[in-house]
C-alpha cells in the first residue's frame, strides 16, 4: 500500500525491503521429496541445489534463486509436497 507516500520515500522503503529480503522457495507441483541436499544454516549461491524432488519418474532439482543463508528447511526426504508448499527459506 503506497498511498500517500512521496517517491523518495518509496525508494528508501524499497532499499530497506531489499536488504531484509526473504525468499520463500515453494514447490511448483505435487512431487515427492527425493533428496534434501542443503541444510539449515548453509550459505548458498544462486543456482545451488536445495532439494531434489521426484515426480512421475523424473528428477526435479529445486535451486536457490539468489545467494543467502538457508534459514529454514521445511521438508524431509520421503515427504510429499503439494503445489505451493514451502520447501525452504533463504535470507
Amino acid at each position, binding site marked *: 500500500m503506497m498511498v500517500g507516500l512521496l517517491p523518495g520515500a518509496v525508494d528508501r522503503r524499497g532499499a530497506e525491503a531489499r536488504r531484509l529480503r526473504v525468499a520463500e522457495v515453494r514447490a511448483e*507441483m505435487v*512431487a515427492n521429496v527425493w533428496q534434501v541436499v542443503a541444510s539449515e544454516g548453509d550459505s548458498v549461491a544462486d543456482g545451488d541445489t536445495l532439494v531434489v524432488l521426484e515426480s512421475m519418474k523424473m528428477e526435479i532439482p529445486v535451486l536457490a534463486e539468489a545467494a543467502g543463508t538457508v534459514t529454514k528447511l521445511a521438508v524431509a526426504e520421503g515427504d510429499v509436497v503439494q503445489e505451493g508448499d514451502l520447501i525452504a527459506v533463504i535470507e
Partner: protein
Amino acid sequence: MIDSVLVANRGEIARRIIRTLRRTGIRAIAVYSEADAALPYVREADEAVPIGPAPPARSYLDAGAVLDAARRTGAAAIHPGYGFLAENAGFATAVIDAGLTWVGPPPSAIELMGDKINARNLMEAAGVPVAAGSREPVADVAAAVAEAERIGYPVMIKAAAGGGGIGMSAAANEAALRAGFETARSRAERFFGSAAILLERYIDRARHVEVQILGLNDSRVLALGERDCSVQRRHQKIAEETPSPGVTPGLRARMLAAAARAGEAVGYLGAGTVECLVDAASQEFVFLEMNTRIQVEHPITEMVTGIDLVEQQLLIAAGGDVSFAPESVQPDGHAVELRVYAEDPVRFLPSPGLITEWEEPSGPGVRVDAGYAAGNEVTPFYDPLLAKLCVHGASRDEALRRARAAVAGFRIRGPKTNLPFHAELLDSDEFTSGRYDTSVVGRLRP
C-alpha cells in the same frame, strides 16, 4: 484353462489386461494402491483388493502384498503387466512356488535378459549382432575411461540392470564420461538396485526398432513384426509405429530372424520384445536388449496382425497352443501409437493433478487404452502415462490422417498433457516423411 488371474499392475495396462480376461471368460482380480482406488480398472475387474499406500515400494512392488491378495482371492495366475514386478525373476519364482501360474517367461529367461551385459554376451554368442560395448560391468571411473578408449567415443553410459530408458546418458569424450559416470552409478543403484554400469558405442542418428516375439510351448519362437520407437524424450518412447518406415524388406527379414534366434537362445516362452538400433543408411542393426514382458506399445502390433497378444500370453501360460496359425500371420496396413502423458507439451515436465474433463476420440481405426477418467487424480507416484492413442489405417498416410483427427478430438483438462506436442509431431515434415531417427524430438524442441 486358467480360470482367474490377478493383474499385478495399475492404470492403462491393468485395464487392458482385464478387458481380455473378461472377454475370454476369465475372472479378473485387480490390486490397487490408495492413490488409485477411483481408477476405471478397479471397478472393471470382477474383484479388487487394496494393497497399500501410494508409494510403489509399499504397494505394487510389495511382492508379499500381491501374493497375499492372490491367496485371499483364490487367483490361479498372476499377470504382471509391464514395469513393477514384471521383470523380477525372484517374484516370478515366488509366484510359481506358491502354486500359481506365472503369465510370463521362465524366471531363468528373465534373469538372463535382466542383465544387459549378460544379454549382450549371450546374443553375440547366438550370432545376433551387438554394438561394441562392455563384456563385464565397469567397476569405476578409471575402468570406464579405459573401456571407452577401447570402444571409441561417443559412448552411452547405461545401468546394466536398467530399463525404461532411465539412467542413460551419452558421453562424447573423456571429460564428459568422468563427469557423468558417478551420477549414472547412483541413479542405477537408486532405480534398479544395482550400481553395475555398461558402456556401449553410441550410434548417431539411429532408429530404435524392436521386434515382437512370441515363444510357443512347442519351442518355436515367432517374430510377429517390428515397431519403430525412435520418437523419444529423455530416452523414453512417446510414439511408435509399425511397420517401420526406415526398414526395408531385406532388413526386416534379417531382424525378425535374429529376434527369433535370440528368443530360442534363452528358451523363451510367451510375449517378449527384442530391442535393436538400426542405422537406416547402411541398413545394419545391432541388438540392444530383450524385454521379457508385454510392452507398452504392443497394441500397434495387435492392430496390424489382428492378434490379441494378452490372450496369447494366457494361452501359452496355460500350456496350450496360440489361437492363430503361426504360418498365416499377415500384417495388414499401418498403425501408430501416441502416448498421452501428464506433462507439459513444451518442456515435458510432469503435471500431476485432478482430471476435470476427459473426452476420448473415436472413429474408424481408433483405439484408446486409457488408464484414467474424469474425476481421477493423477499423482506423482507413478509414470506419467494417461492413455495410449492407437490408430490404424490401410496405409501410413491414412493412419497419420486419422491420427491427426484423433489427437484433435482428444480432450483432457486438469493436468497438462503432451497432446499439443503430438499434433506438432504429426504435422512435422520429418515425422510425416518417415525419415526420422532418435534425435527427432530434439529437433522439434531445440
